[in-house]
């Protein structure tokens, strides 16, 4: 015990707290690897949160709720895909539109669902493993999504690094003209990447409303989508470092909540602004290392592709 904070519990809850931003960040990482900058993560997350919540409450099944969340996020991202890939709209502006629209629509959809408890998700039964002191609590006491989020990092890393699909995706993001000349369908690949990013952000949002909080409140994401975007920069577009980033931010948000509860003598306001300030600090450190961030970013990030021929 350090000042009323139990480190075992802290690490265990850090893993839970990092799941939403990790899922969203991994999705966005794939999108950006394909050369698309989707700033609508916050909007897709919150749509996932409300769609997942509604599905879970109406069907009584948390699993179906997560499916609903993923679908909600993906449907919203489809709007972005149409705007940027078919209608050639500016990606930054379209992403902002997605966030503004998502925040409004989610609050509209969620009107009848304030104050309701969603069906509970159970932790994965690990049997005797969960009874190991300290380690059991940290590693074997969570719901399935904690493990799935880590597996998604492994999966995305392996696909990007070792498969043909990953190679094509990176080619499209690094040089869309060359990829087009080789006969790859640049826009089709990008649309699929955007949909994947939307589904992942939706899952992250559903995790917030179904497990982390768990209830529906307006603006439930509170900037988590933007932090996920920052984590992609922090990770220099590498999946493993996204995991590290998500745990770092999960840790900070859990720690500040614990410090608030423990009344550590630091004013609550300073604690609650700390995740945002630390995000800024990390972004500054990452981008100030001469050109590192600029070099690792996909070369065609944020540029629209229009085949002249």
């Amino acid at each position, binding site marked *: 015990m350090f000042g009323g904070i139990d480190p075992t519990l802290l690490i265990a809850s850090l893993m839970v707290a990092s799941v939403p931003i990790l899922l969203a960040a991994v999705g966005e990482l794939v999108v950006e690897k394909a050369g698309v900058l989707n700033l609508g993560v916050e909007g897709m997350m919150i749509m996932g949160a409300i769609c997942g919540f509604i599905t879970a409450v109406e069907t009584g099944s948390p699993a179906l709720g997560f499916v609903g969340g993923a679908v909600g996020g993906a449907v919203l991202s489809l709007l972005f895909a149409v705007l940027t890939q078919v209608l*050639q*709209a500016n990606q930054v502006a379209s992403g*902002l539109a997605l966030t503004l629209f998502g925040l409004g*629509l989610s609050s509209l959809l969620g009107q009848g669902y304030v104050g309701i408890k969603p069906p509970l998700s159970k932790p994965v039964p690990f049997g005797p493993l969960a009874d190991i002191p300290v380690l059991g609590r940290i590693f074997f006491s969570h719901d399935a999504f904690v493990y799935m989020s880590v597996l998604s990092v492994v999966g995305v890393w392996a696909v990007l690094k070792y498969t043909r699909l990953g190679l094509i995706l990176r080619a499209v993001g690094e040089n869309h003209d060359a990829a087009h000349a080789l006969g790859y369908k640049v826009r089709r690949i990008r649309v699929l990447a955007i949909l994947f990013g939307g589904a992942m952000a939706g899952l992250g949002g559903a995790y917030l409303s179904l497990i982390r909080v768990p209830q529906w409140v307006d603006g439930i994401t509170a900037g988590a989508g933007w932090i996920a975007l920052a984590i992609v920069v922090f990770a220099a577009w590498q999946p493993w470092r996204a995991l590290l980033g998500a745990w770092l931010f999960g840790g900070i948000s859990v720690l500040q909540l614990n410090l608030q509860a423990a009344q550590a003598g630091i004013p609550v306001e300073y604690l609650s602004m700390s995740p*945002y300030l630390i995000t800024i600090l990390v972004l500054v450190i990452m981008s100030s290392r001469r050109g590192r*961030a600029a070099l690792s970013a996909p070369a065609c990030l944020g540029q629209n592709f229009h085949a002249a021929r």
Partner: protein
Amino acid sequence: MLKLEKRPSPSVFWSRATPVLAVALTMVAGSAMFALLGKNPVEAIRTIFWDPLFGEFAWYLRGQLLVKAGPLILIAVGLSLGFRAGIWNIGAEGQYIMGAIIGAAVGLAVFPTENRLIFPLMVVAGAFGGWAWAMIPALLKTRFNTNEILVSLMLVYVAQTILAMASTGFLRNPEGAGFPGSRNFSSYPAAANPELIAGSGLHWGGVAALATVVAAYVLLQRHLFGFQVKLSGQAPRAARFAGVKPERLVLACMGIAGALAGVAGLFEVTGPAGQISIDFNVGYGFTAIIVAFLGRLNPVGILFAGLLMALTYIGGEMASTNLGLPSAAIQAFQGMLLFFLLACDILTNYRIVPAAKEAR
């Protein structure tokens, strides 16, 4: 099949026509949304777009139009300069809050002194607050190449926390029986921002908005800085050869946007809002992004776009009291408008032609 063909230069006709088309499409899609919510779509659209201007309570609501449009136009004009040059300041909401806090703090510091210079001083302080808050992402961008989109947005959350601290702590009304919120400026004439013409809704913020539109128009048409802004957006490489310093452009665009947002916040807090409270900000900083695009990043266009967006705010409130339309519906409606606008923009930059049948 249809095919897109890039226009050699953007169509002037379509660049004027797309906002109108987008508004029309939004009304159609919005009607569908209202119908899904179980409301009569025709009545809803009429309540939002017609009644505030020509309905029973128009005498009052027309004034509200200027109250709401003022801050939107002030912020959007500032943002549009940066957007033109590819500088994405999306944290205007934070700059708006900080301007309001700093400006109000100056006024409250000298309470209850009566002096004509107090209000102008507060306006300057408000501009400084917004400017200083915008300088954080701007300096980080120029010094460390940090992404200004993410930093400016994170600072909105920080500003909101500071606002909570101000209204429950250092700016709380000492005679307010412990309730959060500062002294009300309406009872402090030297620092208040009252209606200038009774019933018009025009306060100093509206005057400042009009002056800003004129100034920005002149700046963009007649001044070297305006030329540099436009050049940097359209041809960044050419801008560098022409001697435009990107760092100075970032600092200037962010600084102007921040100062205008700060002033808007100060006018709001001393006038319509009346006091610093936890939730005096209602998202003008974000809606102004839509206003800037709807006005085609053009000062005159933004004037009209701001009035239209103000109309949706007022009409939305009417619709929520009269028809029971959820207040979130209007937010979704505004978001939809930005979607259609961006979608219609394809007509400005591309020609839609039937695809040639023969093999290439």
